[in-house]
């Protein structure tokens, strides 16, 4: 017998307590292997107005390119204390801050490897379905061969590529719409 999917609904404006409490935006406590990085995601609506009531989630492989999940059966190290999941709400500047490690590369089903990336979910009042996108790292030579970026019109690829600011922080503005609309994926 087949069951019908439960439809999606908006997170609304009042998720504050339950969803965020208990989830630090620091994914990588001391001892986790890899290059420590700071990510700042910011959220804008279709008119370029910052969204102060949004929620970002990130999901990533560890520095060895291994996902902490039973369906990743490759013989690569897992790091104790690193699940690879983070969650943070946007602040009055529309920003959410994470500290983590730079992920390793993971394979592509049809062969080859993907460039290092972080998977992102965007939720907010007025967003009826989870918006999924990715963060790549500016200057990574593997970007040129990434099979996902190849699916994206070259003009829109920069919407997926975080840039490092003068302080060493990786920043990626996410625009729900408008002239700089971020590429979202049907995963």
């Amino acid at each position: 017998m087949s069951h019908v999917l439960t439809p999606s609904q908006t997170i609304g404006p009042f998720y504050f307590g339950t969803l965020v409490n208990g989830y630090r935006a620091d994914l990588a406590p001391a001892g986790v292997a890899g290059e420590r990085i700071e990510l700042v995601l910011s959220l804008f609506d279709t008119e370029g107005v910052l969204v102060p009531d949004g929620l970002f989630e990130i999901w990533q492989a560890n520095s060895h390119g291994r996902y902490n999940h039973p369906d990743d059966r490759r013989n690569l190290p897992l790091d104790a204390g690193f699940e690879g999941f983070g969650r943070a709400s946007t602040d009055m500047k529309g920003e959410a801050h994470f500290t983590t490690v730079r992920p390793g590369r993971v394979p592509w089903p049809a062969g080859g490897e993907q460039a290092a990336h972080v998977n992102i979910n965007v939720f907010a009042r007025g967003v009826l379905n989870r918006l999924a996108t990715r963060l790549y790292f500016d200057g990574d030579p593997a970007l040129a061969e990434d099979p996902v970026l190849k699916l994206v019109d070259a003009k829109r690829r920069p919407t997926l590529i975080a840039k490092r600011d003068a302080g060493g922080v990786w920043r990626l503005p996410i625009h729900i719409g408008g002239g700089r609309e971020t590429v979202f994926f049907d995963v």
Partner: protein
Amino acid sequence: MEKDTYRRPAAGQHPANLSPAYKSTPTRSPKQPAIVLPQSLSEITGPSLATERLNALESDLTKQRMGEPLGERIVVHGRVLDEDGKPVPKAMLEIWQCNAAGRYHHPGDQHDAPLDPNFTGGGRARADEEGKYEFITIKPGAYPWKNHHNAWRPAHIHFSLFGPAFATRLITQMYFPDDPLLGYDPIYQSVPEAARKRLQARFDIETTRPEWALAYKFDIVLRGRNATPME
């Protein structure tokens, strides 16, 4: 081409991002269609939150404070299943809701209705091996929300689920059966008509606890896996 691990939703199962009657959507919905991504390890893995320690108080929203919250005590329970009806074992569920008066324990909620010092409205539970979960809570009130003249949200409980993968992530809302406000709510009505009823819990007399609480059953269906091709 490799086959996707998780089935993709058919048209009409989820709301359209742009649902103009819900006035926040025009400035918060993408114009470009989402790019269909073949599922790689990045999409078929996801957080299990297995190391999150839950205590029993988290699934009983009536026992989190010093005293009992006001309102009608209810049991909300059900199963987390996939599209084949298979249980999603150990699924993490998170809920949040307003109190019986229709007010959220949240600094952004300025509705002129009383806060209840004994109710924060947040809970978590992990489904068992058969995908079964249960919360004890109080029935949330309706609340006004300024979307249009005289706009009221029907009573609802917000649900957040991870399921087995990044691909199966779902945030939704549970409504109560035959609430007259459903007919006027643009958020509920953003879901195509044929799929809407899935968001209504069922009154469940069997699970009702005599002399103590009424019960509602809300099964949640997440995306199922494609059949594995025979080798």
